[in-house]
């Protein structure tokens, strides 16, 4: 429960209020008082790290990607299409690795929904890919250069009537969805709803209804899994919603990588206007999901601002300002944005530090960034973590893993504000290396 005066609180007070609600075990159906206390202590530990306090020990968290499936002997396609099998395998994973403290998100996905929609942006296992091939984005230009103006002028209108039909062809009828102004006067309504009653819009709405039903089946299974993890095993959920940097929304799956990079030279003003238009949508997407789930953390994977992907000047001009605005917008609603900083950010850290984001309101999970520099430039104002290489999980040994974790803890643990995590979404790992990582996190993470 949030306090009655929530709306009048400062950003940091809102964050603390939402965290207190998330940590609280009151009124929640835990299996036993012991499980409730396990949940509370884990959630408190995580919150302490993110609010730059020193917890009892460093929290260890992992997004397990495809690793759960590989180690539990099920296919990636099972996690898309056989929900009971996926739930069983996931619960087996928690039992096999009891040192995993927090709900480990995986690639448990509603395959039938993607099939129904004809989703063209990705290929996935059990769909167009073999059962054990991991899902991947299909690079392409999904927004043409001459569509910038419409995106800028009316982003959600363009997304609804042009982009959704383009990437989900079963919803092609949405192209005919009427103007929302059609509800503003009684005589307008029959005109607007005449369009809604057209065969193509009707077909799209019926497809959406079926997608809703299929998603409900997925949600029921995911709910069962989360319930088992949280209330049965005391594992807090640490991810309440998603968003991205506005430049990544534009560049990843609208313009596509090649086109957006050339847009920096060919139409820079359009790029700037587009990321500005996307920013409030990026904020709302993160906040709505986090608030709705009761988990006050939003996960933002960062892509195209990494070292080498653009110059420092272009990062300062095109990438950072709208990302900063997004982060401030999310924080203002009492939600902590947690950035997964893919690639390296060694050339960006100093610039980030100059932004003076409020202390203890953001988290940064790094990949190939030097962690001593991350501690120096970021650690005083934000929680940091990550960096344990995917290559170490898969090609290293328990001994090299323990040594890596020990060094990382020595560098980053002092003073708190540190969480132990892989530097990747963990798709592949040798089981003994994963276990060694968990054990080393416990051994070297105590304050």
């Amino acid at each position, binding site marked *: 429960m949030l306090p009655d005066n929530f709306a009048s609180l400062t950003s940091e007070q809102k964050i603390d209020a939402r965290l207190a609600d998330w940590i609280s075990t009151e009124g929640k159906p835990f299996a036993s008082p012991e499980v409730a206390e396990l949940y509370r202590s884990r959630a408190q530990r995580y919150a302490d790290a993110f609010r730059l306090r020193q917890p009892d020990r460093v929290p260890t968290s992992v997004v397990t990607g495809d690793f759960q499936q590989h180690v539990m002997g099920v296919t990636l396609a099972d996690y898309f299409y056989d929900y009971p099998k996926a739930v069983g395998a996931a619960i087996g994973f928690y039992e096999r690795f009891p040192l995993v403290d927090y709900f480990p998100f995986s690639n448990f996905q509603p395959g039938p929904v993607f099939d129904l929609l004809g989703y063209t942006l990705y290929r996935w296992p059990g769909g167009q890919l073999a059962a054990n091939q991991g899902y*991947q984005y299909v*690079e392409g230009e999904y927004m043409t250069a001459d569509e910038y103006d419409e995106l800028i002028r009316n982003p959600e209108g363009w997304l609804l009537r042009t982009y959704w039909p383009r990437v989900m062809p079963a919803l092609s009828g949405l192209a005919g969805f009427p103007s929302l102004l059609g509800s503003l006067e009684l005589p307008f309504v029959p005109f607007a709803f005449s369009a809604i009653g057209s065969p193509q819009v009707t077909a799209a709405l019926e497809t959406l209804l079926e997608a809703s039903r299929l998603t409900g089946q997925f949600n029921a299974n995911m709910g069962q899994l989360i319930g088992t993890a949280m209330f049965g095993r005391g594992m807090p959920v640490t991810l309440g919603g998603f968003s991205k940097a506005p430049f990544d929304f534009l560049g990843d799956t609208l313009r596509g990588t090649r086109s957006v990079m*050339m847009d*920096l030279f060919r139409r820079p003003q359009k790029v700037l206007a587009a990321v500005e238009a996307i920013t409030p949508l990026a904020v709302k997407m993160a906040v709505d999901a986090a608030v709705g789930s009761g988990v006050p953390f939003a996960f933002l994977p960062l892509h195209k601002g990494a070292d080498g992907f*653009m110059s420092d000047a272009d990062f300062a001009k095109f990438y950072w300002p709208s990302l900063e605005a997004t982060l401030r917008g999310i924080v203002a609603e009492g939600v902590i944005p947690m950035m997964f900083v893919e690639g390296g950010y060694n050339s960006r850290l100093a610039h980030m530090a100059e932004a003076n984001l409020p202390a203890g309101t953001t988290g940064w999970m790094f990949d190939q960034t030097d962690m001593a520099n991350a501690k120096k430039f970021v650690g005083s104002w934000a929680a940091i973590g990550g960096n344990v290489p995917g*290559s170490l*999980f*898969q090609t290293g040994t328990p001994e090299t893993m323990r040594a890596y974790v020990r060094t990382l803890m020595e560098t980053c643990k002092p003073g708190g504000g540190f969480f132990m995590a892989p530097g*990747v979404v963990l798709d*592949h790992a040798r089981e003994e290396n994963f276990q060694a990582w968990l054990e080393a996190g416990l051994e070297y993470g105590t304050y």
Partner: protein
Amino acid sequence: MNQELIDAITELREEDAVAIADRLLDAGTSPSDVLDDCKKAMDVIGHQFEVGESFIPELIFAGDILAQIARRVKPRMQAAGETQARIGKVVIGTVQGDIHDIAKDIVSFMLDINGFEVTDLGVDVAPERFVEAARESGARIVGLSGFLTLAYDPMKDTVAQLRALDPGIHVMIGGGQMDEQVREYTGADAYGKDAMAAIALARGWA
């Protein structure tokens, strides 16, 4: 050598570069000479990339400018019976299970402009296709691209099969989650952290 063309490309003045190339070709400049100026421009941009003055967007944009000029040059070369001088052959592709291609495409075009005959197998390439392409082309340099950790074992399989074909074949790997540890795991000869490193490796093995 036409410094005006080289400068237009290195300064990423797209319309100027294409217009100058058209003007030179119409005035009878040898297509090979125009292509050679493109190579000189890419050498400049490549060096800028190595020293941190140019980045992936600059490489991609320059590559697109070059592609526009190449579309004008190559038909004229064919008509004149000219061929581009080749210093070696390379087979390149993104390994099985991985469909990322942007970095591979940059390396592919840089190898081409630097005089290598490139067989680009695309993405999601099974080990057997790399072997077949190396055998058919006679290439003794193979580049394996992979962006994700799922690429490690396909790379290892591909290297093993290539070695069975030709123990002396040179194999380099590159991509987002690749590093020296992965190179050792896969048995590849070298790991290139970016496109320029890949070119340097290929030149050294040619």
